[in-house]
């Protein structure tokens, strides 16, 4: 005789140590097994798209800093690419190389943070997190030398970047590049073969490649499912078509593969940084564009990049004025979140936290 039971509805509330921001998840549990999931977000909505209609193109760069606040440089880059397409401004060569260098360093910093917090959620009480943050501090120090701030940079401009790389940047970058490969190997030694980590993350939260493509998932989550799609190779922007790097993919699409893909992407980013350093031309870093940018009436442009979380895109429509008529942000975390329910059904509470951590959501992007 089957027992008649009622599922417990638990509110993994907006304030929780592992929801990576203010995110609310109403889960129906049967014992420890997840039966249904209802994500509720919007706690961090600040109206970025509406505010963008009232600011000039240069002022919107400060808004884009705050979308994915852990990887501000790539947000700036995506937006600035969209405006350059809209207004027809071409940045100089050196600016493109500087942007790629900075974006790859930002990718390393973002993946370090994602990996650190992922392992923290699994339970290794903050130790790999502290090691990852030690390296992230060095990257943030380098960014501070460039533009004076550590999180909301406001560094890229329409037509290039605001400042050239300072003198003290190069020795810092060289020493960072010298010690980083050993540090990534240290993280792998600590974590990759750890039997408990393998048992917690292998075959957990699997998403098949067909389902991933159907849900418009992008970024490391898509690549871990086996789909070899990276915007830096599929639709190259800036100078990525002249860089040599590989795209790591996973086979199984589980949490363990997503972790491995991020570690490998860090190594490939180091390769790109080294190539940028070797090949950087000299010259100006900002094109001669008016400070109040205008675009033709009715012009539309979509500029997208491969941000650390996935495909980040800006769709801009101009009405001939100094502000855009409409700015739509295609944020990767928001789109990746739509597949959350399929990834979570049938797993246990402990796996829920692990799967959520492995998708690497940032609520600033989701809520905009």
């Amino acid at each position, binding site marked *: 005789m089957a027992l008649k039971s009622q*599922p*417990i*509805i*638990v509110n993994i509330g907006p304030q*929780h*140590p*592992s929801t990576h921001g203010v995110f609310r998840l*109403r*889960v*129906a549990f049967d014992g*420890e*097994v997840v*039966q*249904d*999931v*209802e994500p509720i977000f919007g706690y961090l909505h600040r109206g970025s798209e509406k505010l963008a209609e009232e600011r000039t193109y240069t002022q919107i760069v400060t808004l884009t800093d705050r979308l994915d606040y852990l990887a501000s440089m790539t947000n700036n880059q995506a937006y600035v690419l969209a405006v350059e397409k809209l207004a027809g401004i071409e940045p100089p060569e050196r600016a493109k190389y500087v942007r790629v260098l900075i974006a790859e360093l930002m990718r390393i910093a973002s993946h370090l943070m994602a990996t650190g917090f992922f*392992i*923290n*959620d*699994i*339970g*290794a*009480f*903050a*130790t790999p997190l*502290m*090691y990852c943050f*030690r390296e992230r501090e060095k990257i943030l120090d380098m960014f501070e030398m460039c533009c004076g701030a550590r999180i909301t940079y406001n560094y890229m401009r329409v037509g290039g970047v605001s400042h050239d790389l300072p003198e003290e940047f190069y020795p810092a970058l060289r020493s960072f590049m010298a010690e980083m490969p050993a540090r990534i190997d240290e993280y792998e030694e*600590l974590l990759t073969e*750890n*039997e*408990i*980590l*393998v*048992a*917690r993350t*292998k*075959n957990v939260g699997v998403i098949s490649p067909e389902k991933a493509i159907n849900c418009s998932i992008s970024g490391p989550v898509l690549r871990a499912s086996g789909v070899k799609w990276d915007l830096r190779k599929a639709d190259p922007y800036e100078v990525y078509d002249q860089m040599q790097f590989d795209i790591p993919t996973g086979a199984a699409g589980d949490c363990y593969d997503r972790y491995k893909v991020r570690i490998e992407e860090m190594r490939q980013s180091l390769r790109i940084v080294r190539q940028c350093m070797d090949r950087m031309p000299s010259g100006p870093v900002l094109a001669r564009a008016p400070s109040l940018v205008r675009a033709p009436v009715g012009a539309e442009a979509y500029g997208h990049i491969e941000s650390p979380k996935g495909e980040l895109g800006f769709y801009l429509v101009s009405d001939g004025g100094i502000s855009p008529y409409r700015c739509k942000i295609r944020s990767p975390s928001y789109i990746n979140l739509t597949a959350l329910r399929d990834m979570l*059904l*049938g*797993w*246990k*509470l*402990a*796996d829920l*936290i692990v799967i959520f951590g492995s998708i690497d959501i940032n609520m600033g992007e989701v809520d905009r």
Partner: protein
Amino acid sequence: MDIIYNIFAILEKGIVDGLTPSLGAAVALAVMAFIKVFLVANVGLIMVMVFIYMERRVLGRFQVRIGPNRVGPGGILQPLADAVKIMIKEDIVPKAADRLIFNLAPVMVFVPVMLVFAVIPFGVGVAGGQKYYMSVADLDIGILYVLAVTSLGEIAVLMAGWSSNNKFALFGAMRAAAQLVSYEVPLVLAVVGVVIVAGSLSLTKIVEAQAVPFIFMQPLGFVIFITAVSAELNRTPFDLLEAESELVTGYHVEYSGMKFGMFYLAEYLSAFAFSAIISTLFLGGWQGPILPSYVWLLIKILFVFFVFIWVRATLPRVRIDQVMALAWKFLLPLALINIGVTAVEALLWPTFPWFLAPVNIVIGVLAVWAMAAAFRSVWEPQWKPARLAATPVGG
């Protein structure tokens, strides 16, 4: 020089002999027992403060940061500041909580752990030709008493989780009921091997039987015991009862003020108690070359706790079904193998000469290797989650 080694024995003999003429032998012994209980309780609580400080500083150094170093010179008054903070906090009882059980649970967590300290031999001393063991009561069934008394703390966890009227607390309590009860079995069976080798349940006799420390004579038992103790103490990798990132401290989420202080205290007190038990059973207790006996026990206890902190700094958490699989499918067969091998050796070489130690080490390594290879298919299940028809969460 002898005075330092035998100071506690001399004091004991002096007090008993001094009080017997005036009060009678029975009352003098009762006064001595009271003094011993007082001392042991205070030593336990002071050591808890040392443990809390040590954990935070050593964990910080593992994580390339400094632990707390502001309160007092080098931060040694930090646990005192924590204690004062906990005591002056407001005591909030949720409106729908079951008041009697809610108030009773912290007490029931704390008392059994304190009772363990009655049998731990803190050292040995000779006074007036007689050997005095520095324990409150040298029971003949010492280790059996310890195992029985520590099982009482488990019901208190369930009481705390249930009476809080909070779903997260209930989750923690249900996990606790499963985990703590399951790991009692390998815990007890690992001790059986030690008892066979030592020939007695009394803790003092177990220490005296360790010419070769039992960590070498019973390596398999040591591994099983330390794993089971990690699980009983709710320490990583088995700390899913209070998993901060999942359940926001689990079964004691609704407690505040001194009631939470009781849970906190009981956790570190049981860490101290079990570290003392491990040092007594496996590391040779108070034996050691130059320093006094009580100092050696302290060093061994701190070393065992350091290993616990080291494991906590490195390993992630295990999931509940993996925890249960580990207890029943991995540790239990290993414990039974250990008992079998020890019993065979007891029949053939009753005095357990020293060459059995390397033999046991080899057998232990082979057994763990074989069980791990067999267990791997169980440990990494290939199961797919059940495709459930989703019940709507509703409004």
